């Protein structure tokens, strides 16, 4: 394997945006039958490098080499012709086309110039079986949850029968089960001789799957080595460049106090007549397979979708918030999972995004108080270590930094209840640590944090209590020592009735 030729290489590539250099002379080589990890903090330039490798962007300098030959005029179409497929971090799907058509897009089998739906169907059925996509193939992608769309994106890449498969954070919105399917798939592909490049901020996945690593920092390669014999600690050290402590902060000893949320017979969207409660000072996790009503529970409590309850007590009020403003007024805030579509106004600046919920509060005599605003923004940016000019559009930020903005905007409200939907998706390990610490501090300050997550370790190590949902009902409620990966996954799959179901 070592003497095999690399299938795809980047040699000394440079790339900048509007004068800001992002990649400064990066080398990477992908070999057949090897899973290559690409690590780096948010904004290190990983996605940019991938865009160069797949022809979506052109390097300012340096070259892309395929099978030892310089690629020349390189576009996504020619990358496909060369057998290179990418699972993009930004989904490349078309909402109103069916799953099958999305998977075939750009690589349709043809007959007499027309799309050959029969052949397409066969090919698509095969790749869907590989990735575990069981939805009807004629279903529009718009009807799928984010995690399922991510699966479609993976199927789309596989459909092209790639020699080189690049996966940019493919598991960020996948459930543990789906991630497991993907891992098995990657092993199969590797054994068939495919070259794989894998990007993830979940280091346990990297450790389990990858045999070689390239580490990017500030647009330069700071590490390029085999992964054999390197443990989790070592991986982190490699990435961050120094010794680090525990990822998860210790649980606080203080007992939770007053009840902040108490609902009975609560229904909203997919959630059916559940009881749920949370007390000040707690971090409550909500687990389960993807799409079992976790999001609807949060949205219902937030007043963003119609909800009803036979009995409700929320921050001293006796009813559910009827709309978002009411929820905000009651000190409830919500950080959505799909930050690009729901959490942030992408084309607007960091500052505008941060200030949006507090506009009314800061206004004086109906006019915006610019100095108060910029003071607040600067404060928050410092507090959450959001670097650089706050006038930049959020669009131009890396995923992790976008997540920080989505969180930061709520802090001035001084919320008493935080509803978080997968807040660490796509966030690098350092930022994760910061976010976990922040959440723990929130709880210690006497707030209630409710966090839905697809990242099971997060539920196990961060939360004081975990509620597992299954088909819109509470499958299990785990507390303290009863929280474990097995218990959560088991309850989610409906295997065992662990804990006291409410």
């Amino acid at each position: 394997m070592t003497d095999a030729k690399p299938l795809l290489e980047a040699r000394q590539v440079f790339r900048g945006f509007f004068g800001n250099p992002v990649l400064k002379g990066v080398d990477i080589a992908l070999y057949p039958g090897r899973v290559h990890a690409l690590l780096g903090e948010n904004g290190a330039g990983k996605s940019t490098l991938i865009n160069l490798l797949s022809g979506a962007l052109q390097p300012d300098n340096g070259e892309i080499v395929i099978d030892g030959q310089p690629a020349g005029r390189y576009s996504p179409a020619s990358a496909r012709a060369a057998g290179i497929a990418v699972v993009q971090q930004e989904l490349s799907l078309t909402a109103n086309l069916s799953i099958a058509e999305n998977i075939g897009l750009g690589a349709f089998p043809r007959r007499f110039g027309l799309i050959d739906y029969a052949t397409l169907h066969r090919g698509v059925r095969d790749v869907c079986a590989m990735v575990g996509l069981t939805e009807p193939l004629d279903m529009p992608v718009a009807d799928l949850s984010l995690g399922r769309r991510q699966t479609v994106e993976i199927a789309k890449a596989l459909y092209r029968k790639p020699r080189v498969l690049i996966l940019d954070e493919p598991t960020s919105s996948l459930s543990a089960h789906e991630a497991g399917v993907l891992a098995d798939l990657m092993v199969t592909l590797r054994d068939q001789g495919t070259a794989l490049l894998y990007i993830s901020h979940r280091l346990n996945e990297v450790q389990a799957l990858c045999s070689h690593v390239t580490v990017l920092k500030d647009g330069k390669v700071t590490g390029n080595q085999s992964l054999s014999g390197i443990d989790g600690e070592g991986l982190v050290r490699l990435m961050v460049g120094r010794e680090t402590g525990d990822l998860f902060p210790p649980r606080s000893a203080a007992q939770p106090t007053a009840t902040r949320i108490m609902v009975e017979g609560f229904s909203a969207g997919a959630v059916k007549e559940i009881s749920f409660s949370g007390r000040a000072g707690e971090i409550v996790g909500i687990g389960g397979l993807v799409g079992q009503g976790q999001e609807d529970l949060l949205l219902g409590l937030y007043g963003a979708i119609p909800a009803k309850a036979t009995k409700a007590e929320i921050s001293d009020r006796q009813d559910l918030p009827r709309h978002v403003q009411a929820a905000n007024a009651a000190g409830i805030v919500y950080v959505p999972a799909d930050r690009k579509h729901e959490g942030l106004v992408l084309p607007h600046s960091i500052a505008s995004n941060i200030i949006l919920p507090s506009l009314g509060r800061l206004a004086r005599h109906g006019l915006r108080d610019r100095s108060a605003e910029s003071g607040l923004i600067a404060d928050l940016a410092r507090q959450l270590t959001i670097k650089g000019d706050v006038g930049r559009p959020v669009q131009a930020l890396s995923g992790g930094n976008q997540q920080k903005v989505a969180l930061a905007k709520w802090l001035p409200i001084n919320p008493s209840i935080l509803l978080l939907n997968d807040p660490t998706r796509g966030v690098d390990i350092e930022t994760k640590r910061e976010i976990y610490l922040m959440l723990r501090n929130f709880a210690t300050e006497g707030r209630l944090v409710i966090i839905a997550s697809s990242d099971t370790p997060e539920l196990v190590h961060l939360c004081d209590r975990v509620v597992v949902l299954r088909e819109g009902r509470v499958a299990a409620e785990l507390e303290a020592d009863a929280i474990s990966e097995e218990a959560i996954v088991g309850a989610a799959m409906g295997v065992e009735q662990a804990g006291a179901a409410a």
Partner: protein
Amino acid sequence: MTVISSSDRLYRAIQGRRNRGLGGLYLVVAAFVVLYAILFPGILSMGGFAKFTQNWFPLALVAMAQALMMLTGGISLAIGPLVSLGAVIAATTMGGSLGVVGGVAAVALTGLAIGAVTGVIVAHLRLPAIIVTLAGSFIVTGVALILLPRPGGFIPDWLSDALAGHTPTAFLLLGLILLMWKAFLATPLGLGIYAAGDNPVGAFRSGIPVERTKVVAFAVSGLLACLAGLFVAAQTGSGDPIIGTPFTLNSIAAAVLGGVGFLGGKGTMRGAICGSLLLSVMINVMFFLGFPPVAQYVAQGLIIVSAVAVPELIHAWRAKR
């Protein structure tokens, strides 16, 4: 979890799905058509059907032209002038040495060319379609006025009779055009219009030639608008340099009624066609109900709003249950 077993069912299943959300509109349109047939049973005769479909046909074509533009994420304000230009070119060429065949070719080429040029400006220079086509509408109107400063020109009688006589040729043509559209949509290029309109970056990364796709869509849109003009010329037996003006807004109304969205990639041609049918049949129904002009205006506004609002409200109400 229905997994489709037989292959050609995939295509049919996809097509079936695309009726989703149009049920309300189908119902409204069907109700109007039935009402019309009750008010005027003559519609069920060959001649009556022919006349009715002839009056609907050009609107159906421009609705398609507009829907195509909207699928790419743009909107055209030049549809009406293109109709006029199509009519003018037909009426000025068919009497001359070009003859009917040459005249039809001239109309088609003009439509394709103007559409393609607009498409190039919009896709490659990245200007908003709405304002490019606004400027284009003045230019196209100007050309039509120069070619034919006042209504006139010539269309051979046999052509008028063939297209707009007492046989439902127009309806058959519409069927044919829809078939061709279906075929076009079954090509990678045609389907690419949805991708290019909905998620241009993603489409590009999937290997779709986004710019080229848009140019083709614009060209086809121009072609359809000019062909509508050709039909109008045949129907009226002559050309008129400003006859198309009202088609611009009507085409937008028809497409939006049919569920075509502005942001690109959302909507179906069948919806747009239904929207145009509603707009057209509504006029006849109001006539036979004996509405005075004031009521015509008010009813028209109400019908348009409720055709969109009612399905939406029913949907919201269902979601709440």
